[in-house]
């Protein structure tokens, strides 16, 4: 029974990868968005969930990845080869801001990250090589939906598997110790800053790769799209709604979220109320079930599911 989540996850992954053979383009687009959401949510969860460091500045990494891909592709590089470079850049940037920011704890760290996101957005729209606020277009001939779809889904599977691996590793244990009591963790000899920096860099790199794929798929980026504060917001919201600090939670949150988004965008009357829905979700989760949907499910089917998800 313990293997159930793994088998189910692997089966879903294989199905998603094989989907282009059967499903039509519209549905594939939805799966693409879901995979994108899963990557963002699970990557954020590495730092925000496992280590408990809630960052509201992740659009910065997504934007760095997207801009790196477009800028390098415009200089003639193969778009897919730019992805690791964008990831490295985002990881380096995450260390740069992490060094001072991780001296802050709890909400202070969160506030500082809002600032980081804002500064990066402002800079991207004011500097000339990024095309300013009007954005940049990918060079023609770089669009291949099937390839992009497969990469995004494969990355999503890899990120979830990585999260599961990290959670069980010594690294994940150290992050959990930091989340539970940072002073106690330090007393046990855990260099908290180093572990936080590592988790930050890892999640930043993953988000940046997703950002690069996003840029290739949409062929056009602007500070308003990839550095948007709302993006940072949804990145945080997904794991929190699903179940922060778990493996299945962010995936669940991403599923709820991308479904909501797809459904909401198709109803004109509701198109303008997504902030209301996000806000209400956040309020309801925080007041009634801070562990998210997964926490709720667990409470309802406590006995049976405890065995299922004991290590998920």
């Amino acid at each position, binding site marked *: 029974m313990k293997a159930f989540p793994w088998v189910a996850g692997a089966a879903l992954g294989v199905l998603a990868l094989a989907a282009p053979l059967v499903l039509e383009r519209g549905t594939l687009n939805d799966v693409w968005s879901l995979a994108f959401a899963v990557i963002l949510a699970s990557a954020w969860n590495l730092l925000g969930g496992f280590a408990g460091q809630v960052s509201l500045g992740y659009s910065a990494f997504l934007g760095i990845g997207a801009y790196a891909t477009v800028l390098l592709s415009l200089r003639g590089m193969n778009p897919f080869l730019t992805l690791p470079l964008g990831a490295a850049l985002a990881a380096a940037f995450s260390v740069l801001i992490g060094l001072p920011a991780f001296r802050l704890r709890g909400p202070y760290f*969160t506030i500082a990250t809002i600032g980081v996101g804002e500064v990066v957005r*402002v800079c991207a729209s004011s500097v000339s090589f990024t095309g300013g606020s009007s954005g940049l277009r990918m060079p023609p001939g770089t669009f291949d939906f099937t390839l992009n779809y497969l990469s995004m889904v494969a990355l999503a599977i890899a990120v979830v598997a990585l999260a599961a691996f990290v959670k069980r590793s010594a690294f994940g244990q150290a992050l959990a110790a930091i989340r539970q009591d940072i002073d106690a963790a330090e007393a046990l000899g855990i260099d908290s800053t180093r572990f936080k920096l590592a988790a930050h860099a890892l999640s930043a790199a993953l988000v940046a790769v997703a950002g690069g794929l996003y840029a290739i798929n949409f062929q056009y980026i602007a500070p308003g799209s990839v550095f948007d504060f709302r993006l940072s917001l949804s990145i945080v919201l997904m794991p929190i709604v699903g179940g922060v600090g778990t493996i299945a939670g962010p995936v669940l949150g991403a599923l709820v979220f991308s479904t909501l988004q797809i459904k909401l965008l198709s109803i004109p009357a509701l198109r303008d109320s997504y902030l209301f829905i996000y806000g209400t979700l956040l309020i309801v989760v*925080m007041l009634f079930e801070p562990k998210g949907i997964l926490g709720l499910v667990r409470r309802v089917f406590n006995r049976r599911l405890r065995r299922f998800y004991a290590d998920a």
Partner: protein
Amino acid sequence: MRGVLNVLIDSLLAAGLYATMAYGLAVIYGVMRIINLAHAGVMMLGAYTTFSLFTRFSLDPFLSLLVVAPLFFGGGVLLYRTVVRRLPRSGGTASIESLLLLFGVWLVLQNLAYVIWTGDTQSILTSYTLKSVSLLGVRVGVPALLVFGMSALSLLVLEFVLHRTYLGKAVRAVTQNRDAALLAGVNADQISAAAFGLGTAFAGVAGGMLSTLYAFTPDFGRSFLLKAFCIIVLGGMESVTGVAAGALVLALLENGLAVWTTIPTSFQDAVSFALLFVALVAFPQGLPGLFTRLARRRAVR
């Protein structure tokens, strides 16, 4: 010389407004250890309420603050009673849960504004909006002057309330030591409600005053929220004077950089952020903490 005077006067005028909006955050943090992210949303609503009073009833924006303040105090108390007090109490530090909860409130408020006032950019144009007067040889906009006057007035009233009334003394007592205040018979729940109302009222008033100086949309308020954070981090959360000093430092830096360097004004938000970052990291106890540390070092020598 003229440039220096210009910057000084502009900064002083801006600092009044900054202090008003920062104080709302400080009082809520002080009493409840909650970082009120909904502050930005409340400022935005304050701006729109003033706007509606102006367009519907042609009430002068500054007079409408007399309506906005009690209205928002009530709204704040209501928000506290219905939502905020249900949060599990965290120990001595602010909790992520409260931060995210109020973030949710902010989003709901934003959406409310989109529904009521649409996403169009609005501004208030009164007969004196574009007028200016000469002050020590420096041209100063009339609205900026009025905003400074109102801010100074509201901070003076606040100072009086904090030091001369039971409510104010209780607020300060809970801020300094919640447990001791409880032991002394202070009803912490009531004081928290009052403090939340007070903070919300200050945010509403600050928003109303912002609406006379800037154009606004439902998305408005984020950069001012960050400025307010920066100020309370600089000034410490405890005293009105500390908040005022923090506001002045930020305003001086912004105006000074705008006049003496070629940094474009679009980077102004980045400046307050950089300052926030430096302040949070370098002196987490704020300027007062820095001063006591320096004084202690000198005493040791």
